[in-house]
């Protein structure tokens, strides 16, 4: 036990005395997250749109002048080419849309705006049909009234000359039903409800949980890996091996030393994005911290393992494109449902994938323990496997009888 704490204490001393590393671990993630927050959290600007051939069109009311500039066809084409507008709508029937098209996100914005206007267009069309129908019905009603007038006169005549025949006719006549009251006009606007989140949820809110995982993993991976690598290259590991310290004490000493530090780091990081950047979070802070903590354990144990295969710092950093970058892409930052099976299987082997899932459940869906225990468990399993391999690797290089 004493050896374990001596190891842990030494690692904490090392981190605390190395101000640069300390700054990297704490300030760098905050800085990058702030940047990401600005980039993804900003509301997208309104698309610039125009209409042409509007003068003779009765669809004009659907395209408010605040949203759509009025242009001549030539003007519109020119502005589109100059990227002054994102799209223009040709109001000649059938209605046509011309998009600038080079930026998919702008395309999407323009299209969703135009589609909203098209709903108004439909309303206009419906109204037009309604007035036409009402006209037709009114003429029919007039005809019917005229016919009823004739009938009444005929009945009077019959009552006078053949009352018995009239009675028979009245008995056999089908009973006319009263016309239904006109149905209430249907609402055209959609009612939208959210099972999770709300319509203020922006890209940063859904990226946030993945980002927390990625940064914690990345920085712990770098610093943990290099720190253990140095132990190997400077020869201090040999000194440890030539001392009575046990194999598991070396590895667990690292885990505890960095672990205490990770608690501080993940606490600051989580508080920052929740309270300063105001990320959408309806879950418990403690749940978030637990997941981040377990994740960093797997990052640390994996980095110690990989440092075995590196002979200097550069080689350690060469693992980043191999280990970190794929995790970023398969973490759930981007949808992976449509990827080929083997890529998804690869994603299932990545710790950040599980932390993202768990953190989304906690922060956005607000589920408690039931929503993250499984992902948490898998992260714990990752760590246990990596730690076990680490201990075996050290044992293999130490031919001493325990």
């Amino acid at each position, binding site marked *: 036990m004493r050896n374990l704490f001596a190891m842990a204490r030494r690692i904490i*001393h090392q981190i605390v*005395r190395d101000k640069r590393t300390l700054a990297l671990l704490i300030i760098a993630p905050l800085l990058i997250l702030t940047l990401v927050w600005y980039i993804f959290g900003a509301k997208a600007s309104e698309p610039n749109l125009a209409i042409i051939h509007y003068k003779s069109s009765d669809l004009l009311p659907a395209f408010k002048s605040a949203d759509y500039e009025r242009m001549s066809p030539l003007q519109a084409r020119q502005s589109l080419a100059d990227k002054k507008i994102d799209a223009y709508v040709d109001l000649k029937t059938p209605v046509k849309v011309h998009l600038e098209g080079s930026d998919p996100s702008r395309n999407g914005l323009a299209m969703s705006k135009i589609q909203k206007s098209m709903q108004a267009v439909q309303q206009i069309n419906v109204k037009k049909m309604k007035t036409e129908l009402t006209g037709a019905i009114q003429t029919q009603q007039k005809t019917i009234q005229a016919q009823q007038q004739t009938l009444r006169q005929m009945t009077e005549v019959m009552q006078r000359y053949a009352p018995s025949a009239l009675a028979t006719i009245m008995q056999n006549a089908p009973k006319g039903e009263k016309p239904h009251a006109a149905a209430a006009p249907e609402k055209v606007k959609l009612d939208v409800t959210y099972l999770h989140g709300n319509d203020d949820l922006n890209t940063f809110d859904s990226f946030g949980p993945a980002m927390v995982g990625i940064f914690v993993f990345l920085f712990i991976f770098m610093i943990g890996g290099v720190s253990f690598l140095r132990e190997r290259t400077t020869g*201090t590991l*040999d000194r440890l091996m030539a001392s009575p310290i046990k194999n598991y004490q070396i590895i667990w000493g690292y885990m505890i030393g960095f672990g205490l530090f990770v608690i501080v780091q993940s606490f600051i990081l989580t508080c920052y994005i929740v309270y300063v950047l105001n990320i959408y979070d309806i879950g418990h802070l403690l749940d978030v911290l637990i997941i981040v903590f377990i994740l960093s354990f797997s990052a640390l144990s994996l980095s110690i393992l990989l440092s075995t295969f590196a002979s200097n710092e550069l080689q350690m950093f060469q693992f980043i494109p191999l280990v970190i970058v794929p995790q970023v892409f398969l973490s759930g930052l981007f949808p992976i449902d449509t990827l080929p099976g083997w890529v998804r299987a690869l994603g299932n082997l990545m710790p950040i994938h599980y932390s993202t899932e768990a953190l989304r459940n906690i922060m956005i869906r607000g589920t408690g323990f039931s929503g993250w225990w499984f992902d948490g468990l898998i992260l714990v399993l990752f760590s246990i496997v990596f730690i076990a391999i680490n201990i075996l690797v050290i044992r293999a290089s130490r031919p001493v009888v325990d």
Partner: protein
Amino acid sequence: MNVSYPVKGEHLHKRFKNQIVLDDVSLTLQEGEIYGLIGPSGSGKTTLVRILLGLEKADSGNVELFEQRPTLNAFRSLGYMAQSDALYNELSAYQNLDFFASIQGMGGKEKKQRILEVAKSVDLEKDLKKNVAQFSGGMKRRLSLAAALVHSPRLYLLDEPTVGLDPMIRRNIWTLFHYLKGKGATIIVTTHVMDEVAQCDRVGLLSEGKIIAQGAPRDLMAQYGVPSVEEIFIAIEKEGAKK
């Protein structure tokens, strides 16, 4: 008489890929002697020390520490100093010694006292609070030696302990070795410096993975009829050429 053997290596073989590093090396140290392991670089000195320590596995052969298979417990009585300084640069000298003393099971007042004592013996007591990163090469070397001494082991394995030190400090360190020997410690030291060889009780000459000669320096010089240990290598080579 009960003679104990702090270190014993028997028929050690070691090869890296195609290169034979150790070829049937046997070595027994007697308690309380300073044993010098000399030989040109690449002759397998460091590998031999590492195998005796249990840091590396020999392909075949046996190693015994204190007359038993090496155990973690035996390491408590063993001080090791590698060719590299093996210090934590971010920490102060005191924190370094404190850590190495702690993992050797020391604690409390005893540890504190011992750290000061050891620092004094390598002339670093005024620099204990400094960061190791600010140390000169010689200071690091001395601190590294102090870290090997801090738990007062009975057996020292020192790989080039005096390399890069100026003559004054080197002499002080050898005085320290004799003092430790006087207290009953056994020391195995690898070296290049020939005037240090003369201070060893016994030397082993290692060449191409073999111990080609072993004995007290004076006896060896007499045996080969040469005035210095250095020339024993040349004499043996000549002998080999004659055959």
